């Protein structure tokens, strides 16, 4: 599904990613862990085409397409979804209008008619339940005045609405209390199918107790320095990142 080869990327002339290689197949859940500043969020930003980052080398192939040639909106409509580490507040744009615009943009891309009001309402209600989200949020401006937990649940709600093929969860666990974490993780797990894939970016093993990864990578200094099974996460939780740092100095 996704194949990243020798990916280099920079921001403001500073190189952050220094040769990433990563392959994600259908049905897989990958965890990417690593200390602060190792390039985890940069990797997710580059995957979704954030214009702040510049790719200087390497290739990303997604379902046979050259991902780097696609506009951010088309990457989304090809099925890539990013749950933002810091969801953006958009004053004056209601959640319901925002979501309808997004759903219809996806439908248009696939040659489908815009969703009817009743279908949209039914879909919204159904997905909201999954995240135990209050219906009142629908009429409020996107993320404006939402608590940290509400913002993250709202991200996964959007994911449920758009049903992506590849979901990237960027530190979705940060700022969540244990109950919210459980709700968010349950939501993610319920959306999992053998046809889609997920990349879970996190500092802590905590989230991985709920969302079980198939493969765990350690990102350090812009490169993937270790790849192993779920037990790697346990090891990191126990020993921290220092041993990795010293190993790759």
């Amino acid at each position: 599904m996704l194949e990243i080869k020798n990916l280099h990327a920079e921001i403001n002339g500073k190189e952050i990613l220094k040769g990433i290689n990563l392959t994600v197949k259908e049905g897989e859940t990958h965890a990417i862990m690593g200390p602060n500043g190792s390039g985890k969020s940069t990797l997710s930003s580059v995957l979704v085409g954030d214009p702040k980052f510049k790719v200087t080398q390497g290739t990303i192939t997604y379902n046979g397409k050259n991902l780097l040639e696609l506009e951010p909106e088309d990457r989304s409509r090809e099925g890539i979804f990013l749950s933002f580490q810091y969801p953006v507040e958009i004053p004056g744009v209601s959640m319901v209008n925002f979501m309808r615009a997004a759903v219809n943009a996806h439908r248009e891309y696939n040659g489908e008619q815009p969703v009817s009001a009743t279908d949209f309402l039914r879909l919204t209600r159904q997905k909201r339940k999954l995240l135990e989200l209050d219906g009142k949020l629908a009429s409020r401006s996107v993320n404006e005045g939402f608590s940290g937990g509400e913002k993250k649940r709202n991200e996964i709600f959007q994911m449920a609405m758009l049903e992506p093929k590849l979901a990237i969860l960027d530190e979705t666990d940060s700022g969540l209390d244990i109950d919210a974490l459980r709700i968010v993780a349950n939501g993610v797990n319920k959306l999992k199918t053998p046809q889609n894939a997920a990349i879970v970016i996190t500092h802590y093993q905590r989230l991985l107790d709920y969302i079980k990864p198939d493969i765990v990578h350690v990102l350090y200094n812009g490169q993937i320095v270790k790849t192993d099974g779920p037990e790697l996460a346990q090891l990191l939780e126990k020993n921290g990142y220092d041993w990795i740092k010293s190993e790759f100095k």
Partner: protein
Amino acid sequence: MIGLNQNLNKLNMSAEKQYIDLYDQATQMVCDNSVNVMNLPRFAARQALLDKGIVGPDTERYRHTDMEKIFAPDYGVNLKRMNFPINPYDVFKCGVPNIGSTLFFVVNDTFYNKDLPKNNLPKNVFAGSLHQFAEEFPDIAEKYYGKAADVKSDGSIALNTLLAQDGFVLYVREGIQLDHPIQVVHIATGKTDLMTNRRVLVILERNAKATLLVCDHNMSSATFLNTQVTEIFTDENASLDYTDLEESSLKTTRVSNIYTQQKAHSNVWINGTTLLNGTTRNNYQIDLDGEGAYTSLSGMVIADNKQKVDTHSLITHHVPHCESNELFKYVLNDEAIGAFNGRVLVDRDAIKTVSNQTNRNLCATNKCRMYSEPQLVINADDVKCSHGMTTGQLDENALFYMRQRGIPEATARKILSVAFTADVIDRVRLEAIRTRLTTLIEDRFSGKLSRCATGTCKTCSKNLNIKNLH
């Protein structure tokens, strides 16, 4: 139609001179085709124009609008009051749908009094032409006409008062509360370049309530210069919602003045929206004369191409315990130019004044320009006044967030632009007008209204699927 003297040596003459000459040559015609109440102040207007010129007493006031240039060209003026061969009720379908509003037209600067809608207004409400009003209520007309908009305060008011021959009046007597809005559409039409001089007079007696929507449209491809003087008087505890919507053409220049005098506990909500224009100057002057009065003055400008909108406002708190709330927003694109000069003046005695002024602007390109001058003059102690101004671009983070959800960039920009104007629209209290404005703004950001520039307004009315009210 009388053309202005084309042989004027403009280099040696100020712009107002040709209008004074025209008036001097045609005084009889101007007055014969008007009414006494409008003729009375002409002499003073002529004198003010002669003394102070078209730029008026304060040249600083027109820093961003070249009045000499605006008034220099040779326009026709319809002093003979010839009728234009259109029935606006047939050709103009742009209304506020299904809210039972009563619709009136002013064609160029003549009130259209044929085929008037069935008047479902309560007794004790007058809505109609200044001519008729002056006949039916001569004392009231004389008491108010020209009393808020002083000819000495502004050159364009002097000029308008000198040449205006008709207008629209809304007069609501004590205690009458109008639940449905009244709409007045000013239409510019005809094949020749024309100057029009429009008047609107709004008088609300004690405890009266009304909603007035005044639209400024253009159905012509000719060049127009429109001057407009609106005077609003609200007596004690009266309540007025006034929405002024300009959707004219790139070849239209307009100089509008809205002067308001408010008595105790009255509240006035004014909203001025410019969706399409050429060059526009909007002056607002609000006088809070009675304790407990409230003013909401808001407006928005959506401009691209080479549109230009210059807003000038003065809100004066003369007495204690009044509140004013001012909000203007501009969304500029291409080579559009915006200017906002807003002054809130708190007189020495006006303690316990509460006022807020906000001006926020978006500039989408490097070539558009925004000039903003917020001013707050406080001469009293114990007041609560604030003001703020920002000019910037759309939030790039929000834009990217929306694109990540699959919303194409152009659509995302449109949604964010509409959202930017949302709090201005929220200041319009009647939901039907709010909904209508939102639709117009969405269409504007989709580029649908720009077709009006070609003078085919009917086309876009069709696209908007607006039903006539009657």
